[in-house]
């Protein structure tokens, strides 16, 4: 396996993991993203709710498509479009001075849409472009990609919800009463 093929595999895994995590996170906990989209696009709540669901489904399917050789080109195009859309949302959020958390992965404890969203969006678009330029068949060991994505998804989840994870493993005092 060449270095460039390995790097391409990593890029595909990273893009797919970010999109799958963001999509599933929003599907499970849409509240924060709904408020952010409502504030950003000045939409009423029901329309913002529908927009979040649609975005979450598109993100998840795009992430999965990157893992299927026949769908990888379409997945890369969609990932690029999503990346540019996130960058645009970050610019708009910054211009409007939004204070609402972006809830990009479903978590309320997040920064508002802004410079970080622009950088992440541009990184996604650049990664998608690299995948497109390399061609759908250039990635090594397609069968290993889902394992790589699964690993990154779990690491991302633990990082994003580190407070919740810490709370889950925090030792608790045991009751000594009633023996």
């Amino acid at each position, binding site marked *: 396996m060449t270095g460039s093929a390995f790097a391409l595999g990593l890029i595909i895994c990273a893009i797919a993991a970010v999109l799958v995590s963001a999509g599933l996170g929003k599907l499970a906990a849409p509240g924060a993203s709904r408020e952010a989209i409502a504030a950003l696009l000045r939409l009423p709540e029901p329309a913002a709710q529908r927009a979040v669901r649609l975005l979450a489904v598109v993100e998840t399917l795009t992430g999965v498509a990157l893992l299927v050789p026949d769908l990888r080109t379409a997945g890369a195009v969609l990932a690029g479009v999503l990346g540019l859309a996130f960058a645009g949302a970050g610019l708009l959020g910054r211009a409007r001075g939004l*204070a609402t958390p972006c809830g990009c992965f479903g978590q*309320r404890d997040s*920064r508002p849409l802004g410079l970080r969203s622009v950088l992440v969006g541009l990184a996604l678009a650049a990664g998608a472009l690299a995948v497109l330029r390399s061609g759908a068949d250039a990635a090594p060991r397609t069968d290993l990609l889902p*394992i790589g994505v699964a690993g990154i*998804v*779990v690491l991302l989840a633990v990082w994003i919800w580190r407070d919740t994870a*810490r709370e889950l493993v925090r030792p608790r005092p045991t009751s000594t009463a009633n023996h």
Partner: protein
Amino acid sequence: MTYVFGIALLILAGGVVVLFAMLGQLADRAGVTPSQGSGVRLLEEARVGHVPAAWPAGLAGFGDGPLRIVLVLSTACSSCRTVAGQLADQTDVSDIAVAVSTADAAVGAEFVAANGLSRLPHHVDEGGDWVSGEFGISVSPAALVFRDGMLISALAFTDFTMLRSTVSPTRQRV
């Protein structure tokens, strides 16, 4: 075969994301509901009688007084944002300080700035380490009540006015 195994792993990983997201949403909704009496309840797990070994720089010297209240607000909790908004409208807040519990210090600093909390003594408590380590409190919004630097009570609440009617420097009771 490896591909099928990988897809199965990915489905499990997706389940982890959904689980964490739902736990996060539950934590976000946690707190005192209006159905719970006055909306203020005692936190039994608090280390009442504890004098903190050290106060964070932002709260230095704050606890030394007849009755002082440190509000614990989390950046991940929607009722905490409501309480922060209520604080912005208050004029008599000389006995109030805020500890902002957050996973990311930058997010905590933005929470303070966005809600105008910088006029109060405040501390961005990354990971909630100070509040949970010193007082055993992992609930927000919560009010830690101090007298002469000692924790004398801890309350969960969702409405600042309700809290004020329960704890007041003029009434001197908790």
